[in-house]
């Protein structure tokens, strides 16, 4: 069965009876089905193939609302969206061009996301009365005019898969499971994808169960053929390779990249990475990832609560290793007192906050950027802290390394401010040349003839020495009480208190000497500058590209460092008439910029719907202001 079908396909590809090919710049596909249908797997395989074929892509999974739901119900719908392109892109697409809906519930949930005129492929086999009822369809959308604005391919996928595999020695349930490969095969034809990568993957992963491997391959081929034959699909679509920088790539999700970055930084510093944390959506996967890398000297500590998590991390830093803790918005609230202790004790500490919809419990699985002010100011007293923020999933790696580098060099807590969207989104990551990674050199003091001064400061960085308990001759006590300059002894002296506070603030400011200057995309002066931070990078980038095609040119800077700001930010802002600050909150960076740079004309663009900006709405806003 394999060989024959493979030959057939080869003939088609070599110019047998072939349908026309259309070239497009980019395509957005959404695979949706019941949580048991394997849409994440289908999406993954399509993505991997697309990667190997040289397109740029970005993906986003939409996990089911419930942990487990009965088959066919609305809370059980799981979907996966991918945008792939012949150009550099950073978003998984606003609306989908193609929706593959494996059951009525998947269609119900995702119909609103398909652009008018787009293609909807449904698994006709399961559009029966019971399933329609489960999905709260009042009438059958395949029969009425619900789908009149779309191209619809009603394919009895379950039936077709069964037919294709009728000679395979498999149980009915196993054959059912292969229908996602059938759907994948159809997509491979529709977008002229090469199947070799997936074929090899199937052979490797199912080596222990060759009958399943063969069935999956057969289903894949059958789907490919079916798409080739069916009249509804009149053409194939071709998306050319993108001009990606030469190098070695891997597909990476944000949280994964962050975990790798932190491990890398700890190894560069030759330290143990101690991660104290408490499970919380969407940060838990960082713990799961780190827990598997023990052979990289990573110690993970699942604490009894958020405060114990940061307490243990502080203890680890006090002990001379890299202490790190991770959470989301609500956890950061809980950690604030302990964070202040780390600031007073001037210990290195990395605090990860993967932002989610707030306030309070908010929308745990949705994205937002509303913790900036909490991060900068949400503690008692004058409490300056360094903040870095990645801008894409793969950027999480470098910013993670940066967070550790700054923390240990300046003896300060650093907040790594990520967001749900970056944490779960995936894209190609050009792997860094290991030799070019920054050096993280740490020097711990040893006893000298002179009395040890735990709060004597490095003249350049203002960092105090990192004395490891167990080092003879350096015995000292630190804590949260106000302390005297140099000796660190408890002191309530007024002038000393102010001095220490100003030193701590100055220390954070001096980090600006150590971080890259901002680069402007676009002209260096003009009518409009877009200032973004975090995950708004994707939508801003693509909106600008779209507007360039309409000859509308604006400028854009993106802040990876939110405290301190890069040194040239002020100068840059002065060169533009209007500053647009798009953010997924009600104006937090906007507030900070207006405060720090009085005199600029700054306008905010706000969205707090648990969703990222769409490229369209970003472009529209920018257009409005030029």
């Amino acid at each position, binding site marked *: 069965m394999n060989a024959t079908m493979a030959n057939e396909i080869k003939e088609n590809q070599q110019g047998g009876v072939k349908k026309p090919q259309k070239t497009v710049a980019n395509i957005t596909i959404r695979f949706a089905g019941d949580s048991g249908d394997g849409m994440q797997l289908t999406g993954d395989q399509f993505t991997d193939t697309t990667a*190997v074929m*040289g397109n740029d892509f970005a993906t986003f999974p939409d996990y089911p609302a419930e942990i487990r739901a009965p088959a066919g119900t609305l809370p059980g719908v799981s979907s996966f969206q991918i945008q792939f392109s012949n150009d550099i892109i950073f978003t998984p697409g606003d609306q989908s061009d193609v929706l593959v809906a494996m059951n009525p519930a998947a269609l119900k949930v995702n119909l609103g996301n398909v652009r008018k005129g787009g293609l909807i492929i449904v698994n006709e086999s399961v559009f029966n009365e019971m399933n329609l009822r489960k999905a709260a369809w009042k009438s059958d959308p395949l029969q009425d005019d619900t789908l009149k604005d779309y191209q619809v391919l009603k394919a009895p996928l379950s039936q077709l898969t069964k037919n294709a595999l009728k000679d395979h020695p498999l149980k009915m349930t196993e054959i059912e499971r292969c229908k996602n490969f059938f759907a994948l095969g159809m997509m491979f034809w529709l977008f002229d994808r090469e199947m070799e990568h997936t074929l090899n993957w199937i052979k490797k992963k199912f080596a222990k169960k060759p009958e399943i491997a063969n069935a999956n391959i057969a289903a894949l081929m059958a789907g490919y053929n079916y798409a080739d034959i069916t009249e509804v699909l009149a053409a194939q679509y071709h998306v050319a390779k993108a001009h*990606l*920088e*030469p*190098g*070695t*790539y*891997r597909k990476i999700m944000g949280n994964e990249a962050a975990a*790798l970055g932190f*491990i*890398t930084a700890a*190894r560069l510093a030759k330290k*143990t990475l*101690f991660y*104290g944390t408490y499970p919380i959506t969407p940060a838990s996967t960082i713990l799961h990832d780190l827990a598997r*890398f*023990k*052979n*990289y*000297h*990573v*110690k993970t*500590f699942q*604490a*009894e609560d958020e*405060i*114990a*998590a*940061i*307490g*243990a991390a*502080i*203890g*680890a*830093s*006090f*002990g001379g*290793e890299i202490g790190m803790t991770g959470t989301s918005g609500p956890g950061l609230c809980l950690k604030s007192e302990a964070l202040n*202790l780390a600031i007073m*004790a001037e210990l290195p500490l990395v605090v990860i906050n993967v932002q989610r919809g707030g306030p309070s419990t908010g929308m745990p699985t949705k994205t937002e950027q509303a913790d900036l002010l909490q991060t900068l100011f949400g503690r008692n007293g004058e409490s300056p802290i360094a903040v870095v923020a990645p801008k894409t999933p793969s950027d999480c790696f470098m910013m993670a390394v940066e967070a550790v580098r700054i923390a240990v060099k300046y003896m300060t807590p650093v907040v790594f401010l990520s967001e749900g969207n970056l944490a779960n989104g995936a894209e190609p990551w*050009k*792997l860094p040349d*290991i030799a070019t*990674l920054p050096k993280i050199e740490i020097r711990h003091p040893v006893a000298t003839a002179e009395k040890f001064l735990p709060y004597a400061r490095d003249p350049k960085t203002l960092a105090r020495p990192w004395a*490891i*308990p*167990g*080092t*003879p*001759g*350096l*015995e*000292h*006590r*630190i*804590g*949260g009480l106000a302390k005297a300059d140099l000796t660190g*002894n*408890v002191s309530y002296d007024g002038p000393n208190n102010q001095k220490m506070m100003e030193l701590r603030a100055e220390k954070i400011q001096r980090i600006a000497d150590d971080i890259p200057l901002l680069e402007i995309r676009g002209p260096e002066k003009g009518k409009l500058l877009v200032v973004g931070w975090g995950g708004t990078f994707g939508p801003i980038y693509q909106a600008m590209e779209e507007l360039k095609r309409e000859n509308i040119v604006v400028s854009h800077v993106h802040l990876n460092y939110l405290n301190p700001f890069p040194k040239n930010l002020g100068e840059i802002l002065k060169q533009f008439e209007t500053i647009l600050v798009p953010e997924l909150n009600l104006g937090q960076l906007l507030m900070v910029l207006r405060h720090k740079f009085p005199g600029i004309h700054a306008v905010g663009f706000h969205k707090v719907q648990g969703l990222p900006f769409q490229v369209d709405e970003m472009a529209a806003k920018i257009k409005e202001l030029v």
Partner: protein
Amino acid sequence: MSEHDHENVNPDANKAVLTKESFESDQAVRWCPGCGDYAILATAQRTLAKFNVPREKHVFVSGIGCSSRFPYYMNTYGFHTIHGRAPTVATGLKCVNPELAVWVITGDGDGLSIGGNHLIHCMRRNVDLNILLVNNRIYGLTKGQYSPTSEIGKITKSSPSGTIDYPFNALCIAIASEATFVARTLDTDPRHMGMIFERAMAHKGVSFIEIYQNCIIFNDKAFGPVIGRENRDDRMIYLEDGKPLLFGSDRKKAIRMNGLRPEVVSLDEIKNENELLIHRENQMNPTYAYLLTQMHYPEMPEPFGVFRAIEKPTYNEMMDKQVEDAIAQKGEGTLEKLIYGADTWKVG
């Protein structure tokens, strides 16, 4: 620290033998005159000197409270953290640096109120550190509010009509948390305190010590009825492993079990020595130790000493072992493998 460690430790680290003075810091001690903490501090300094473990290996981690001022007066490494959270910092410290002798200094408010949760989990995990809970049944530093161990009906600044909180018992919490070493001592018996500290240092695993301490200003003589000179013979039992629970000025009173209830008997009454309850520290089942914690004034004499001492693998040693095993199985991780080790593809 295991029992072997206090001899021959790092002979190069300290050329001179350590004395109590070696452990005194240069900070003037500022507890109230007559405060029980002075005795505790002196005993700790003397005990540490005895062990001759280098000074730099000790770390005292405290929370907030009068007793939590402790680290400033010890010439070792110290960390004065935030209210209730000392066990968490101490856990992280011990996990990355298991060579250190880590002490947690806390009080009845810091440890049992705001810090209750962390204390329970620290003991549950059996992290190898020593917890000194200084119990004066009052909040001293904030000037006199009641604590979770204050007796019900107590009149204080925050309970002028008397408290309506039922108190609980620190050692009950320790045993419920399955601490592997549980002991009680008192600030007015430095000899006993020193002995308990030594036992704690030698014990591998979490050691929980409750210290009855007198707050001379806000709760003076709170333990007087039990430990006052005129009462203590008849109201205190000093526990000794393997021996019956004898007390009384003539050591003629003992404890016998009546079903699940301990009762006081006179040695003259009993016919057979086997009737007497014999103290055994090393019992995996914590029920007996729990029974001891239920003996309180006025119904029963109060036990002092080591209630329970068992051994089981500690959290930090198991954590280290997992790392070692991972390295043995998969080899030391390299950046090459970490970054380039997944499915990759090349461009250009």
